[in-house]
């Protein structure tokens, strides 16, 4: 849309208020409603976590975090994210390359399929892996004959996490790479660069912030996933407990300080994620909000 720019004085209707500018009382009302809503639904829960953790001082928080079960939960969460996030990053880059830099029939359908995990309940995401790898599942008998444990063990947790975080990186990169087009890659190919050279020297510099953005959201979800992991974990303390599952166990045991202490650690992760996200958005403004 080509705007015809005229040095027009702002139009003032009879009220004397410039158009597009709400009267002061409307602004005040909207802001009160918005701040009230956000305060009630976002700030209060966020504050509750830290208040709950620190209700008996800093000592119990540190104590709760150095318990062997808590340390093992932290370790497992880091391990799962360290495996799931890079795999999904590689997948996301491949998918975006295939979809954004080439045209082929069924492309829209493929994008829908990549998005599928976003519309599946986390509990169903866990259930499907139980049906495939569980004792009564497709490979259950074979796996138990070979003494391989996937469900109620760490591999199941990793699989479920990969499933729920599957679309994040691809979702971020596809629109970005589509908008960038193929001119630069075609120029590189014409000048004799091979595929890998083109990718590293031409494409990567263009997508690095978008990739980082996708990885950031993918990581937050991977570390925080609860429903899917809860179904496949088996809740073995010190072995198959991730941090969110550990929060649940402590809470159900009425160890509120412990639960909120581990929760506060996850909260810090969320706050850091949001801060980095804001930073990336400032570096490279994007059209739409993401991170379903």
């Amino acid at each position, binding site marked *: 849309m080509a705007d015809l720019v005229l040095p027009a004085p702002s139009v003032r209707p009879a009220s004397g208020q410039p158009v597009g500018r709400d009267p002061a009382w409307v602004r005040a009302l909207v802001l009160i409603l918005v701040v009230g809503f956000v305060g009630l639904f976002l700030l209060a829960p966020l504050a509750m976590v830290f208040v709950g953790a620190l209700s008996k001082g800093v000592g119990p928080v540190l104590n709760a975090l150095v318990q062997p079960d808590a340390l093992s939960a932290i370790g497992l969460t880091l391990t799962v994210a360290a495996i799931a996030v890079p795999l999904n990053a590689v997948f996301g880059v491949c998918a975006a390359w295939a979809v954004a830099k080439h045209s082929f029939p069924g492309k829209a359908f493929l994008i829908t399929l990549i998005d599928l995990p976003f519309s599946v309940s986390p*509990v169903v995401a866990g259930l499907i892996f139980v049906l495939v790898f569980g004792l009564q599942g497709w490979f259950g008998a074979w796996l138990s004959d070979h003494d391989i444990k996937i469900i109620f063990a760490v591999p199941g947790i990793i699989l479920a996490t990969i499933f729920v975080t599957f679309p994040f990186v691809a979702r971020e990169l596809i629109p970005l790479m589509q908008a960038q087009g193929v001119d630069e890659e075609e120029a590189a190919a014409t000048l004799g660069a091979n595929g890998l050279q083109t990718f590293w020297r031409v494409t990567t510099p263009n997508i690095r912030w978008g990739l980082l953005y996708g990885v950031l959201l993918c990581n937050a979800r991977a570390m925080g996933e609860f429903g899917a992991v809860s179904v496949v974990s088996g809740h073995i303390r010190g072995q198959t407990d991730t941090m969110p599952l550990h929060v649940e166990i402590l809470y159900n045991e009425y160890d509120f300080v412990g639960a909120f202490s581990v929760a506060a650690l996850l909260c810090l992760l969320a706050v850091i994620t949001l801060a980095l996200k804001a930073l990336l958005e400032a570096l490279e403004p994007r059209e739409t909000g993401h991170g379903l």
Partner: protein
Amino acid sequence: MTGAAPPHRRSLFRRRSAVPGFGLTLGVTLLALSLVVLIPLSSVAIKAAGMGWPDFAAAAFSTRALDAYRLSFGAALIGAGINGVFGVLTAWALVRYRFPGRTLLNGLVDLPFALPTAVAGIALATLYAPNGLFGAALAKAGIKSAYSPLGVVIALTFVGLPFVVRTVEPVLRDLSVDVEEASATLGAGRLQTIARVVAPALVPAWLTGFALAFARGVGEYGSVIFIAGNMPFRTEIAPLLITMQLEQFDYASASAIAVVMLAVSFLLLFLINAIQAWSRRHQG
């Protein structure tokens, strides 16, 4: 399209592009998609199909299951509705107003995306418990919040909060104030301008955000189970019922309920895509 490459030899399946790596990357994509998403997802359909209709119907449409769907869908609908109203106001404030704390508000809106659901769950449950900060006040007014359907609505409002804001916000930003000025010049009052000019432009984005929040709420588990109370027939959401069946090793019943939920999810996904295609056609 920016790729104005000279026309190459046309293959049957795709236009040849000078950009390499198509076979490899598409192969990796399809392999990963099949192994991680499609084949595992098919298991639930196969399991449910193996039950035969009477068993399937008995599991998927039992009174307990129907009550669970009613709660999950109903609470998700109300939560999405609340977000439909306050989400537009929040987007409006973020785009149109400059006020102290705006950057903070903008960052906070995404909190439900970044905060693990279990953390949100225990925080909301503690706030709204009968002895909690909000729960006690509501109890004084005779309203039971936690451990009642209202608790489920509260959790799903939290979870769905960013969707309407983040879908409406970019459209509102692109909507030029010029259009509103034109409308005012032509004699429309402020309310008329909002109703006739601004609102229609926002409808597709608003519907998309509403549907996304609803879809998310229907499947939500972690933030709900702590505040819901989880009483069968009353405050038991559908995803929780699946985990209950799994704990009793009744995989078939769990699959039957999962198939119903998946069917609704796919319907919503289809609806969202249709809304977006429609809005692209109408607004270019």
